[in-house]
């Protein structure tokens, strides 16, 4: 008897929680598709409109912002994949002095990420003249401690026998890396890729202070510039712009839900 009641209570809790959780987002979506008049008045059958999206798109160069974000995350991802692989390989396959120390040093970045040191990193970038560039935004993140950590864990699980077998066949260190280690780590690369893309798409504070011009602004900064107003806020426009900038992520998530979840899970376990 109590089990049944428990189940109903449980189910109600679940529905209420899920509904409440989705409410802010749903309200934002609703507002984006309705004219400004209705942005404060929830009227069931208010007319739908796409004009907010059109107006928002025209008010700021969102296409450019998207392009910048894509260039940014692609640059970071490629650099991450390569550089983190190299470092993880070194830690796993070789023995050298200071290995432990160096590894701890690298892991510091897990705690003290580049945004924490925003003041000095900005000055560094200023000194080398890379402010207001996409590579400038990417630079502090090109080598990622998290990536190194994940890949090192993964590479460690590669059986030594495979490595030795390849060496016997005369493979150089590079060939061994490419033919033995990398293929075995493919799922982790995927998982890490998703984490990296997600992080850098969403990064805001650092790109905000690094960029000045629209030509290099990523979408997060573009959205905030768009939404900060000197005159009145038009909520339907802001919500439309917000939705626009997050739509690619949402669509990708809906399509690849299963993989996303599985990969985040994998990233977590490791």
């Amino acid at each position: 008897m109590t089990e049944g009641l428990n189940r109903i209570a449980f189910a109600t809790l679940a529905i209420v929680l899920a509904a409440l959780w989705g409410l802010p987002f749903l309200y934002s979506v609703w507002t984006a598709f309705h004219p400004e008049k209705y942005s404060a008045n929830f009227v069931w059958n208010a007319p739908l409109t796409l004009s907010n999206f059109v107006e928002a798109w025209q008010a700021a160069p969102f296409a450019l912002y998207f392009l910048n974000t894509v260039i940014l995350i692609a640059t970071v991802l490629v650099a991450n994949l390569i550089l983190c692989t190299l470092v993880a390989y070194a830690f796993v396959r070789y023995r050298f002095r200071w290995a432990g120390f160096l590894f701890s040093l690298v892991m510091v970045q897990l705690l003290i990420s580049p945004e924490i040191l925003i003041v000095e990193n900005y000055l560094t970038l200023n000194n080398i003249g890379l402010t207001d560039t996409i590579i400038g935004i990417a630079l502090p993140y090109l080598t990622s401690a998290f990536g190194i950590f994940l890949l090192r864990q993964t590479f460690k699980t590669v059986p030594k026998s495979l490595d030795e077998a390849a060496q016997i066949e005369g493979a150089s260190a590079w060939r061994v890396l490419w033919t033995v280690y990398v293929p075995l780590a493919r799922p982790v690369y995927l998982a890490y890729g998703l984490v990296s893309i997600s992080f850098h798409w969403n990064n805001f504070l650092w790109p905000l202070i690094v960029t000045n011009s629209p030509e290099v602004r990523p979408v997060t900064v573009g959205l905030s510039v768009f939404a900060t107003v000197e005159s009145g806020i038009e909520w339907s426009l802001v919500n439309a712009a917000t939705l626009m900038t997050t739509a690619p992520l949402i669509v990708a998530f809906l399509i690849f839900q299963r993989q996303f979840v599985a990969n985040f899970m994998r990233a977590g376990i490791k």
Partner: protein
Amino acid sequence: MKTRLKMAIPLVTGAAIALTAPAVQAADLEFYFPVGVNAPAVATIEKLTNAWAAQNPQHTVKAVYAGNYEETTTKALTAAQAGDPPQVAVLLAIDIFTLIEEDVILPISDIATSPEEKAWIGSFYDGFMVDTQFGGKTYSIPFQRSTPVFYYNKDAWRAAGLDPEVTPATWDEMVEMGKKLTVKDDNGNVTQWGTRIPNLGLAGAWLFGGLVKSKGDGLSTDTGTEARFDTEAAKASLDFMLRLAKEEVMAPGGITWGDTPKAFLEGQAASIWTSTGNLAFINENAEFDWGVGFLPGGDGPGAPVGGGNFYIFKDTTEEERAAALDFVKFMSTPENQAVWSMATGYVAPSAAAWETPEMQAYAKRLPQALVALDQMPHAYREFATFQRARVTQFLVDAIEGVITGGADPAAALAEAQDKADDVLGEYR
């Protein structure tokens, strides 16, 4: 108004400048500007910029929308420090001390030296030129100047039994009328407040300056080294805001700037105190009869002046400066001032602009636009000192502490004054 007599001079001067300006060497200009979401404004800037570019094919100009005022200033300073400043930018009038301290701008009066150009500088309203002066030189040219006005819902006035052509002139009248205008529903919750004065952040501090002026004082002086927070006028202004909340004329607690026009349009406030820059937005969207009046004042009318001016940067070549000056002159011709003012509701900063046929027609269609102009004699410069951002934050904290956190006005202001004096002491 005395200004209407000065009409002839600027028009002739404008023509003279246009005709006699020597051909300028080619330059690439970068022009930073701040505007809000009000999309037509961005398009208007681009239209004007392109018009100048078309007239001056030897130059190129790139108009860069840099966000709001704070962001635009930060961007400009950042770019200047990196050695690549814009040649010309519209930045807050009150950033003058910061820009001077960082040594990134040139006095316009040093570049615009011919007699016609001097006359051109003199053609703007005094009220807008006061905060361009330092050390006897003119550092900027007014462009998008604003002043807050009192927007009110005439239908709400009628519903409350008030004469829709009469707005409160004094604080006491504001409280009186406000009490009649506040409407509650059956649960005792207020559905319409008598008035709404934004009090959070820098916008709150801006409006606060107007209140202080209406009590006969100012928040700062033109030396840039003096902050006047701990004054009777300031305390009276805080008391007024608290009184409005206590008498249920205004919502208690923090009130944001950004939502204010919307609240007005939604009927949540029968009257609002906000920038004349919102005129166009309200005009397009109001579904009720509305009007504009002077801000109610303590001892008399008072308002702050705000908005942005043109600055020309120092790290520029001769050609760039000449081109930038030409650009600024173009943007401030009476006709273009009129275009800009009509698109946004900003107050055109020179008399000649108001005399153009377009503005005359506009003023006929929308007489509300004239109120801001008529309020100008009672306006005072916005708060500005060296280290403006930091010192203003002391004031903002004090206001917010009193309004949203129940701090004691006198104590809060005294504390803000101490902190300001600490910072500004180094500059005296």
